[in-house]
């Protein structure tokens, strides 16, 4: 039966659901990510045993844990397709844009879910009180969008490379650095009971928009055979 490649939001949704169904069957990414986050957070917390951290250190710790969690799990969306040999099938059914958006959404949902676990645990383990919840959530959200967007693109790049996971981190870090630095900066500000300025939030949003736009323009080159 001949089928037309799926288009538009339907296709994006289809790719997203496919990812979610695959994940719900194996629970590989979720399990690895949650345990990784828990190990990283608790190891630091155990090691310093109740010493309170300066806001700058705490903010850096939070984002380093989030970054390495993302690096542990987000490459899977493309690496798994390559390893299972399902890449060709996906290429036949969906356009590059649909695949990009679908996988990006899935990675974003995964990362937000993870942040939803890590951030509260972080405040509990390190005895941190957050005075401005809304800016904190916004910074986390913007940081996750940037991380998911860059990671989705670099995951598509390492698909054919050898030593995929090692090179995935190497590729993602320099590209993500502006967002990483500003997220740490703003989180440190919030933890020291200071409101971030609107322009700083706009900077993070601008970075996210730029990376997503670059993804829209460049992803087809990665996806074409």
């Amino acid at each position, binding site marked *: 039966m001949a089928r037309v490649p799926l288009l538009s939001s339907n296709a994006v949704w289809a790719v997203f659901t496919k990812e979610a169904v695959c994940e719900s069957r194996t629970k590989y990414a979720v399990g690895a990510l949650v345990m990784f986050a828990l190990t990283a957070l608790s190891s630091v917390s155990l090691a310093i045993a109740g010493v309170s951290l300066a806001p700058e250190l705490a903010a850096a710790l939070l984002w380093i844990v989030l970054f390495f969690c993302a690096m542990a799990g987000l490459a899977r969306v493309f690496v798994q397709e390559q390893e299972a040999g399902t890449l060709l099938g996906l290429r036949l059914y969906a356009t590059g844009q649909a695949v990009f958006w679908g996988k990006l959404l899935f990675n974003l949902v995964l990362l937000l879910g993870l942040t939803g676990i890590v951030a509260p645990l972080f405040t509990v383990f390190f005895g941190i009180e957050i005075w401005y919840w809304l800016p904190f959530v916004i910074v986390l959200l913007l940081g996750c969008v940037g991380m998911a967007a860059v990671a989705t693109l670099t995951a598509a790049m390492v698909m054919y*490379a050898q030593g995929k996971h090692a090179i995935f981190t190497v*590729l993602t870090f320099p590209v993500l650095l502006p967002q990483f630095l500003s997220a740490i900066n703003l989180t440190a500000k919030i933890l020291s009971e200071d409101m971030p300025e609107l322009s700083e939030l706009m900077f993070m949003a601008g970075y996210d928009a730029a990376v997503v736009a*670059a993804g829209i323009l460049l992803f087809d080159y990665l996806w074409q055979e």
Partner: protein
Amino acid sequence: MRKAASLLTIWLAGVILAVVYLIPPAEGLGYFVRIAFFHIPVAWVSVLAFLVSAAAAGLHLRTREYKYDCMSACSAQLGVCFCLLATISGAVFAKLTWGAYWNWDPRQTTVFVLLLIYGAYLALRSAIEDEERRAAISAVYALLSFLTVPFLVFIIPRMYFSLHPEPVLNSAGKVAMEPVMLYVLLAAVGGVTALYCLLLSQSVAKAGERPEKELSI
């Protein structure tokens, strides 16, 4: 090619002599200022090589021609060498004038990120075997990393305090230098840029010989 190389050697030797005999010791820096005549041109070329690499990557994605991919890769390889030289000479300069090799000054951070990007790009290239795929994927990476540079230039100076002097071409448009120093510096920048161009064209020509042989097999 050979003629250009010998001309360039004479030019660079002239620049070195000029730096040694013409440049007066600078206020506060003394004879250490001589390092600047090595450091500034090398730093300029490491940024230029990155620009060329990204531009060639863009051209490759448009035309799918092998020569642009080759140019992008060769430029990155040269760029990483120049970037290392700039980092090391900058660190030595910093030790002599500020008292520490490394203190995450904004310029040091930027040059370090540039080094990371070059490293990641070359690591990616060496990890992919298929030639066409390698060309397309590394071109996309070069462009993606190029996109983040303006953000870095904006964010880093806000986060770290800088001791680095203003660039020669600063925002005020004034040149705070004696004419002799400026001319020697311009000569050095021109010489090192020409050296980069020469090395780039040589390595592109060398790499360009390969695919035809492979095709004929």
